[in-house]
């Protein structure tokens, strides 16, 4: 690992100013991804500004009934928070489906959102990668693609976003608050991450120096009936092949409203608006669920090793919706 300078931030404004003026400075949260990358040579910052003890590490209820999660709240603490378990079970389940206990105890809410793809070619500095070194080519296109994207990819990058938490936040219409060199702003989580297009090196819309300070969950009563299901190659401690976050509002046998996001399918958490539109007002039947899944997956384009993801996504969504709609009323 290359030597670097370390500073512990004392306040947000100074931290933002320090990182903004140095293109080779980075924020350090839990270190569970960035520190790996520094050891692998994927990333070589000159300066780390430690914000893990800076941002709020509390979960608070907002006047409108929503919940504000500080950027420094640890993944394990957020998953254990009673208000999250009761009102947003999809989020608690997604958090516990990620990583290992040791890592969840370190990882922060802000850092989890900004973790980078686990594409093996991105992490292997001996292979070309447009995300790591723009213009060098994509090794995955002719490589091993079991974990890669089937939706929204480009000829430059077929990587997937690895976060479970971000999939749940996308389904919940969560909003990210940031402080940047141009001041504060708020960004829906669904708009935080980008599709790769011809700039796969840019994972998110954030500019250099922009710091996530909090994430707001809107008041969403239907989220009490929600779940997250993750399909992976082993029962624990593995990234998703496919995952589904969903919340359902049902009246009798009719779906009044629904929120769905997929993980493991794209360069960003994939909000399934086409499936949601097909489900609103429709009867809660197996046939409806499959039709909705097919509507969302019609544009899916598999690579050599991941054609299985399309039926897997359809089956996972169908089973999650079946379980949620058959659950006792809440």
């Amino acid at each position: 690992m290359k030597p670097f300078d370390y500073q512990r931030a004392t306040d947000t404004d100074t931290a933002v100013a320090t990182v903004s003026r140095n293109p080779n400075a980075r924020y350090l949260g839990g270190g569970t991804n960035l520190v790996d990358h520094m050891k692998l040579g994927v990333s070589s910052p000159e300066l780390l500004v430690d914000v893990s003890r800076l941002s709020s590490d509390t979960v608070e209820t907002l006047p409108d009934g929503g919940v504000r999660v500080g950027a420094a709240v640890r993944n394990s603490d957020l998953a254990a928070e009673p208000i999250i378990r009761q009102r947003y079970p999809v989020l608690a389940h997604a958090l516990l489906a990620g990583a290992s206990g040791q890592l969840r105890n370190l990882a922060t809410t802000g850092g989890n959102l900004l973790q980078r793809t686990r594409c093996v070619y991105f992490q292997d500095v001996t292979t070309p990668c447009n995300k790591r070194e723009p213009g060098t080519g994509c090794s995955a296109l002719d490589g091993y693609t079991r974990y890669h994207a089937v939706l929204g990819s480009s000829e430059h990058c077929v990587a997937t976003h690895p976060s479970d938490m971000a999939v749940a936040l996308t389904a919940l219409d969560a909003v990210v608050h940031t402080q940047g060199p141009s001041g504060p702003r708020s960004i829906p989580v669904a708009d935080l991450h980008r599709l790769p297009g011809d700039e796969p090196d840019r994972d998110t819309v954030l500019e250099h120096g922009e710091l996530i300070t909090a994430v707001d969950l809107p008041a969403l009563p239907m989220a009490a009936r929600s779940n997250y299901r993750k399909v992976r190659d082993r029962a624990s401690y593995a990234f998703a092949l496919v995952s589904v976050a969903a919340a359902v509002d049902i009246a009798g046998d009719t779906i009044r409203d629904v929120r769905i996001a997929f993980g493991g399918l794209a360069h960003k958490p994939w909000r399934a608006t086409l499936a949601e539109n097909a489900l609103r007002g429709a009867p809660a039947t197996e046939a409806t669920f499959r039709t909705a899944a097919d509507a969302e997956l019609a544009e899916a384009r598999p690579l050599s090793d991941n054609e299985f993801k399309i039926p897997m996504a359809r089956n996972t969504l169908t089973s999650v919706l079946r379980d949620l709609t058959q659950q006792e009323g809440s």
Partner: protein
Amino acid sequence: MRLKFTVNGRQAEADDVWEGESLLYVLRERLGLPGSKNACEQGECGSCTVRLDGVAACACLVAAGQVQDREVDTVEGLAGEDELDAVQRAFVDAGAVQCGFCTPGLLVAADDLLERCPSPSDSEIRESLAGNLCRCTGYEKIMDAVRLAADRRAEEARS
């Protein structure tokens, strides 16, 4: 920097520490505590598991600068003056140690689990130890050891 933190209940200090070096390096190379093992250095294998302010964490991912004024408990803190801790005895008695490299991390993780959850189900044991890899693949005996430790602690609590 001059690093000050608490290790296994005692104040520890080290001078001329680079803020960016890992907690694992500080423990092993500066404080003479080589129990926490250095294997993957990426938070993947769990052999460097310690408790940081009471929760299990991979020491290889924590920078020295982040440890200032905090509390760290390592595998060296498990045993008493003259006898092994119940978890350590259970690993010996169940034959859960093969090459031994993953053992210190597993001991800390198992101790942490039993403190949070004194009588874990098999699935709770598996999930809690998912972040500790045993390259000898001796997982069945490790499961036996955690069950044995849980039973013995329950007996100790009753007596």
